[in-house]
């Protein structure tokens, strides 16, 4: 069938569109996890990620989409932190559809995991964001500092304080593991 008379496809005129969509598809799982870790149940992680990536899309010509991982993570973290700024978002319902869609669905969630999740949710937003980027994304302090627009010493302090706050939550678990010889 001839294409004459059909409106031109805007995607064909902009190669960054395809790169952008590939980047989103490749990183969306980790982006959703970061968003969930930071916003908890105070906002929808899907909304956070979608808003963050669409903000990037609006200015897509500015960015290099061949290495988009850092850019996407930074955008999601900042969007999540922006959403958490006062006034706080209202709690989303506990029966969020995504809750049953995690890899641990169908299993009784480990009590320790649940306790730590709750403890992480109580951390200050920047502590939590820095800890997620450090321990989940394995970013260096320098990269975390760039993502959060902070200095490296500041990031180190945030991560240290976050871990110290979580220490009490995990005390029983750690002792149990040590007694059972679970430590490496």
């Amino acid at each position, binding site marked *: 069938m001839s294409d004459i008379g059909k409106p031109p496809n805007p995607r064909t005129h902009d190669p960054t*569109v395809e790169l952008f969509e590939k980047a989103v598809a490749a990183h969306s799982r980790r982006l959703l996890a970061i968003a*969930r870790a930071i916003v908890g149940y105070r906002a929808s992680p899907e909304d956070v990620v979608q808003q963050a990536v669409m903000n990037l*899309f609006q200015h897509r010509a500015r960015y290099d989409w061949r290495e988009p991982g850092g850019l996407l993570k930074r955008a999601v973290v900042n969007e999540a932190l922006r959403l958490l700024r006062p006034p706080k978002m209202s709690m989303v319902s506990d029966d969020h559809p995504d809750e049953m*869609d995690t890899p641990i669905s169908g299993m009784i969630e480990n009590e320790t*995991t649940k306790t730590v999740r709750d403890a992480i949710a109580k951390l200050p937003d920047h502590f939590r964001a820095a800890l*997620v980027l450090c*321990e989940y994304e394995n970013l260096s302090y320098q990269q975390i500092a760039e993502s959060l627009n902070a200095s490296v010493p500041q990031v180190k302090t945030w991560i240290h304080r976050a*871990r110290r706050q979580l220490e009490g939550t995990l005390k029983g678990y750690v002792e149990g593991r040590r007694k059972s010889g*679970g430590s490496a």
Partner: protein
Amino acid sequence: MSMSENDFELLESYLDDELTSIEMGDLRRRLADEPELESLLSELRISREARADVWTSFEPGDKSVDLLVRNVRREVNRSLLTQRYTRGVRIFGSVAACIAMGFAGGYLMRGTPAASPVVPVADNRSDTSLATNDTSDQPPGNIVWNTNTAPSAGRDPNGYLVSFTDIQGNLIGSQRFKTLNEAREFMRDFQLRQQQQKQLQNNGVKMVADQF
């Protein structure tokens, strides 16, 4: 012996792989010598593993990922369409603005009409034979009509020329008559028309059509 905050930070930096090779060497020597530090390190490792399970539990399933990708794709399509529409509207608006500016500029820069329908004033500067006796009550106007006896009747077969000039003396029209009487009659008719128009103007009435 309790560990200091610096020891905590040092061990955390070690686990985060943020130590330099020199710091790493120092720490390894200390770990060999200080069992409490070694114990603390293993505690931090266990805590870290527990948290790693938590981070993994935040990962969504395939359904959520697919939904997000679909939603983003839909938003991208919408955004692209909006951009195209906006670009079209912008071009159309620019063209319309240019046209409007052209018209506005033309309107603002328009001159006064070349020939105003203001009542002409009789002015017989060159030919006293055509001059009317009474010119004092002629209304002022842009157009002065000037009658010239171009060549005299006897010598010029073309007759008598009655020319209309404006106040600056620019020629704006002319009428040729065969005889002097015709020229005078024309002038009388014109004077009559001038008077009629003056009366109408003074009474605030606009004349639509008239006959001499």
